[in-house]
């Protein structure tokens, strides 16, 4: 699928990574997953091909939200939890900008939960990079809305007693049109998902399983670590069968109304029985099921899980304004002031 978005002006010259490198010192911890996310963004922006002045980076508060300072675009570092609201204003006010938002699990799912679900519901055309490290990093290690239940943190010395959010489930619940999950240790997977998000018209959520080396080190290791990824990661691609394993021997099948793990060549299962991934399906049913899969009985699903076409909020704003301009007799403020019940005193 080529770019269909004609609103945003494209660059006339081939841009490169250096066009987006900032002169600021990057102050994330050594070994933090955020460095790789920055590398992926610097790689994908030139590939997307918009004029470099048409990118706008927005963030909230937290480690993730320092992002705008580290990439050379227009950018605004906001306040805690409100990045989605700020981004919404940027995009509605100027739809010719490609708006990217950097946020975290605390920023968007706790203090900013309200804005997060509503930006998704409205389908405003912005791209959200959600750094999910399952911890509050900048305040030094308190549990977050994605911290697994039972986990010991600085504010849960006996283990958390909260049910964590599954980001994909939340996105679908809010009628999300685009959801991808990617690991921070695979730059090309991140780049690919970001590119797909840029192509998608509407709110794109990219959940990045990010490592916080200081306060939640290896939190995702059981899934995305070197030893576990073959068994526990299912990387989906649109139109491809959903298989994984060292030799791609495992696959997802649908039995009754449930997904099941099958092994190709066993119990009469053939490659043809494996479900084909359809990210573009408007119905979120299977996407939701995929988002919820997790070890030990299932792999965790990565890649673009959902990318469905729906009208965007910002497009509809423009359409309503265009229609009003064409049909309303009020063409300027003088018309308005003199409309309706007015009289002259001589």
């Amino acid at each position: 699928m080529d770019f269909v978005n004609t609103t945003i002006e494209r660059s006339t010259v081939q841009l490169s990574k250096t066009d987006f490198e900032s002169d600021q010192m990057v102050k994330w911890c050594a070994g933090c997953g955020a460095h790789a996310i920055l590398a992926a963004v610097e790689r994908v922006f030139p590939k997307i091909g918009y004029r470099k002045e048409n990118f706008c980076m927005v963030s909230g508060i937290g480690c993730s939200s320092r992002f705008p300072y580290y990439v050379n675009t227009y950018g605004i570092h906001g306040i805690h939890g409100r990045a989605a609201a700020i981004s919404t204003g940027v995009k509605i006010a100027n739809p010719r900008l490609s708006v990217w938002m950097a946020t975290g699990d605390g920023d968007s799912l706790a203090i900013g939960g309200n804005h997060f679900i509503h930006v998704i519901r409205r389908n405003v055309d912005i791209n959200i990079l959600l750094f999910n490290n399952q911890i509050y990093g900048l305040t030094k290690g308190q549990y977050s809305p994605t911290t697994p239940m039972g986990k010991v943190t600085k504010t849960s010395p006996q283990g958390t007693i909260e049910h964590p959010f599954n980001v994909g489930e939340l996105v679908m619940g809010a009628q999300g049109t685009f959801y991808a999950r990617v690991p921070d240790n695979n730059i090309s997977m991140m780049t690919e998902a970001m590119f797909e998000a840029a192509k998608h018209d509407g709110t794109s959520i990219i959940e990045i399983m990010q490592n916080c080396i200081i306060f939640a080190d290896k939190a995702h290791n059981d899934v995305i670590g070197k030893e576990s990824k073959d068994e526990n990661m299912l990387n989906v691609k649109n139109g491809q069968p959903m298989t994984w394993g060292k030799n791609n021997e495992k696959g997802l099948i649908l039995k009754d109304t449930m997904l099941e793990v099958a092994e190709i060549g066993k119990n009469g299962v053939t490659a043809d029985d494996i479900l084909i991934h359809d990210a573009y399906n408007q119905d979120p049913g299977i996407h939701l099921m995929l988002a919820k899969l997790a070890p030990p009985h299932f792999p965790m699903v990565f890649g673009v899980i959902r990318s469905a076409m729906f009208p965007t909020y910002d497009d509809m704003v423009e359409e309503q304004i265009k229609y009003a301009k064409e049909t309303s007799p009020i063409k300027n403020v003088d018309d308005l002031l003199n409309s309706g019940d007015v009289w002259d005193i001589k």
Partner: protein
Amino acid sequence: MPNTKRQIVEKESVVVKFVGDSGDGMQLSGSVFSDSAAMAGNDLATFPDFPAEIRAPHNTVAGVSGFQVHMGSEKIFTTGDMVDVLVSMNPASLKSNLKWAKKGATILVDTDAFDEKSIEKAGYKINPLEDHSLDAYRMIKAPITAMTKESLKDSGIDTKTAERSKNMFALGILYFIFNREITLAYKYFEERFKKNPKIVEINKIVIQAGYNYAETIEALESVIQVGPAKMAKGRYRNITGNIATAWGLLAASERSGRPLFLGSYPITPATEILMELSKHKSLGAKVFQAEDEIAGICSAIGASYTGSLACTTTSGPGLSLKSEAIGLALITELPLVIVDVQRGGPSTGLPTKSEQSDLMQALFGRNGEGPIIIIAASTPDDCFYMAYTAAKLSMEHMTPAILLTDGYLGFGSALFRIPKVKDLPPIKPPIAEANDKNYKPYKRDAETLVRQWALPGTEGLRHRIGGLEKENITGVVSMDPMNHQLMVDLRAAKVEKIADFIPEQEIDGNKKGDLLVISWGGTFGAVHSAVKLAQAEGKSISHAHFKYISPLPKNTEKVLKGFKKIVVCELNSGQFVNYLRMKFPIPNISQFNKVQGLPFMINELTEKFNQILEEK
């Protein structure tokens, strides 16, 4: 139809109030009546008075809805303290409004509504129409409901609809009492209900029937005539403060060339501004109804970053929620207009009533050192100019501005002399030019200290701003102690310098004297009227009404020094007076406060002024 049979009594001004159950159509009656008054050349001010509930229990005092009209052949400054003519459609409305009627006032009641149950629900022990408790008033007791039904018996409409037209019957009686051409009301119906000719026809029939009925009442020996007011030449309309605010923002957008963005969340009494701007997409207004107050202001900050005239509208509780984001707008030095239509607080407080108790919140309700622009509108029509001014100052000086209005101004109406947009002062935001090699995010104009507005999409100006403290000029994140001090001082100095761009404080009256009366915002009409009365009696009294609060006009201290005594009148416990005390060490300053959700009455102000003048 001239009223030759009756004696005509000329009056300079009259206050009429329509009261009834919410749902009795009192707002419509008031609107039709005030529209006709304006058409007949009167100056006027109106104010609706309705309960916080949409439909409070039927026929109870809690459910009374009212609409007050003050019209005159002289300049009208307030909606009137006491009522000359009270139209009361049920016992509860009589019970709750009789205290506002002047002795000898004309009271029109619908006797059909005074049944046993309604009388009891209103809290009366016996029927007030029969116990001589109203003997001091000129009573017009009419079976309005029955006669309304009678007048419509051939119209083919059902009884319920017929009954609902009783407000028009009462209105017909009033047109007779005020010797008003009934065709003025016809014009209103034809415009307002143009999509429903049947409603127009019914209203015409009923209002005519009411008028005819009045002619037969022998008790009505005289009719009242309020002649046309002397007003400046020009085109006029009647406008509420909230609509005027919305239009002022639209005018500022057009004049500045900056597209209008409004991010707001519904809240009484500010919602009308959001609704009004939603209607004007043809003027390019982008209106975003946010999920909450915080999203409202944050979306506006995003829009401001891209170069929109960005606004958010709210009332006290919403302003509290926006506090942190106002800090973001001020540290990023982005323009942003915040309209606070004040209501009674704290917390949910008195949503539909008016107060001036958000001043301290507007001035100081933020973490950190946070000076911003605060201005306040004086009258409903002034809301247009002050909204325009808030937008102009905010954009030209790159800092947020709070416009304080209040429920009384927002819902109230006044006549508005329509300006031409080209005659409004120009607005020139400091927009950075593409590929300006010297552009730096916090490089400042040497005189005004204003930074430039670099719009995303512009070639050669990529930059980042945000809530973390920045190094002056470069805009790089900085935790340097001396830089922080510098930035705090610069932000304050920038706002203080705006005093060079606003008018000096005016004094109504002599610049020296016994008493200076100070007011600000929506109390202008009452305070002005009370001061004028005292001046007419030869008292040494002057009035300074403040519209610019942060920064204060340059000559403020000089103004204060010319008087033996000063009294600051405001609808709170003393917020502006304490702000003045903080700024200027003046010993002779006293205060007059009221926090009842009600506007000042002229007579209570007069009493206070006399008391202060008499004190040694």
